[in-house]
């Protein structure tokens, strides 16, 4: 099995290393500017990983050389840079983890074509546009209620632990 498909991970080449980098840079900038873009599924899946990493870097809010390098390369425009720090970081301040959502578009009209591409829509969460018809988890079913309660317990325990650590 080719290395790129081990453990369920997909490492896509997207036309070569240089081409891939340029493509992803364009897509990341477009996503920050428009907050919702429509591409093929593979490109959207790749940009998800880079956007998550970029927002994590920006959230750390340290002014060292690494962040400057990364943000300088990936958020090219000045407007994008300001938007990243002034809009996106406060929006995702309490949000830990996945900041984007992918919705697949219908394929019934293009399946008969040989080289059809599966199109998808990639959007940042919490954007002001009308919501996508994506199936969210039902928060009222039994297993989700139990999981949410367990999460709250764990968080409360963590808070008390941190409080006791800080006080001691």
């Amino acid at each position, binding site marked *: 099995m080719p290395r790129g498909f081990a453990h369920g991970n997909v490492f896509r080449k997207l036309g070569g290393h240089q081409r891939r980098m340029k493509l992803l840079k364009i897509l990341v900038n477009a996503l920050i500017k428009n907050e919702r873009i429509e591409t093929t599924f593979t490109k959207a899946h790749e940009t998800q990983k880079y956007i998550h990493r970029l927002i994590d870097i920006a959230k750390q809010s340290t002014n060292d050389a690494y962040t400057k390098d990364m943000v300088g390369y990936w958020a090219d425009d000045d407007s994008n840079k300001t938007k990243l720090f002034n809009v996106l970081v406060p929006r995702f301040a309490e949000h830990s983890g996945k900041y984007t959502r992918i919705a697949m578009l219908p394929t019934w009209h293009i399946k008969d074509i040989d080289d059809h591409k599966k199109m998808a829509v990639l959007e940042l969460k919490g954007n002001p546009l009308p919501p996508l018809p994506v199936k*969210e988890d*039902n*928060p*009222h*079913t*039994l*297993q989700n*209620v*139990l*999981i*949410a*309660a*367990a999460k709250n*317990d764990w968080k409360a325990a963590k808070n008390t632990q941190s409080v006791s650590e800080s006080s001691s």
Partner: protein
Amino acid sequence: MIVCMLIMNLNKNSRFISSFVKPTTRKRAFLCWNKLKTCSSNISVYTASHNEHRETSLIESREKNELQRRSLLFDEAKKQQLADRVPRIEKIEVKYKGRVLTDDAVMFMNKNLSTPYHCAMHIGTGVANSSVLAVVTPSDAQSNSTSVSKVQTSHDGELVTTDPAKPEQLLWDIHSPLPFDCELQLLKFTMNNTLQWQHEQVNKAYWRTCSVILGAVVQEAFKENQKIGLLKIPEISVKSGAFCYDLLLDPGMRDWEAKEEDLVFMSKVARRIISRNLKFEKLELEAGTALEIFQEDEQKMNTISELLHKNGQDSSIPVYRFGEYMDIMEGPLISNTAHIFHYIVTALHQVSKETNTWRIQGLSLPEELKLHHSVWSVLENRARKLVTEDLPENCDHDTDKSKKFNMHRYESIENKTKNRSKATGQWLLKDWMTSAEKIDPTVSN
């Protein structure tokens, strides 16, 4: 007496009475046989070597006879109620409201005979198998208020409109018959995001059924010479993480601690009960018949008297029966134990040492909402802690005793009840270990 012995099968484990005997003589014969057996056990003509075995086997059969007696009385009461209510078959109109307008249907069903399950079967087997609770709104109240749609009164110059009386939405078991014209809605485990109240009711009913099954497990698991009183099912929300049952154990077990093996054993006993796919039948009994059924159980008599005290001396007592076991329970329950997928007994905590009350806890999930084993183990660890939601704050239970079993991170009580194929080691889905022995081997009092 000889006639009784001829009628009954002499095999002590058989419940099947010969079918050519009339029911009334059958009942009388069974009760006589019961008395005979208990009399014979009192006459001690045992040899020294067989003493213990004989004793335990006689105690076992006494329990079994008790359960059989109860279910016979239950059957009698059920037949009588049917005869009272259905002198001849009358029709009622049932309006079924489905998920979408096009699923709506109007059906003419039999009064006091047909259940929401029968209505669902008219629509489709998928609906019938996946529906778990029913919401019934009797349409009598609506027909009265159609003439008075809105009342406009001028009060201090302002118009005040009062809406007509809203018909009550009653929660109904799927297998209990409908006595009036109504609108019917069937609830499942997963429905639309927006229906919060419906989901809450289904979850509550599921939690209640699991507690009731815990009661049966406790009766089966402990040795017969231990006296166990099932106190009550505390009203605990689903968010607390485990369903509970309060018990009164033998006074000799005050210093006993439940070990991991005991819990695994009890989970296997629960599996044996659940695997029989038992229906939950409901009956509203009068106080007299209920007291007759639960003669030999102190705690149940107490609960009956409490219920009568609360609701009035003439109220009926709702009793649920599944298989051989019976329990007094108010709210609606799930239709069938076949819906249960995960089921484990997670903890047995001693709530207070003085009164010797214990709390047995468990965790379970239905077939439609299975979980990956990693998420399940997180929930399981949470369910091992004592649920303190409805206990008073100054309760004297040990909070320092954190029951940490020596379990590896990926081990769980559920993993020990799974049957794995000998070739590959993979879990054969839905193949669980059930325990055959009736007696709890580690409880050696």
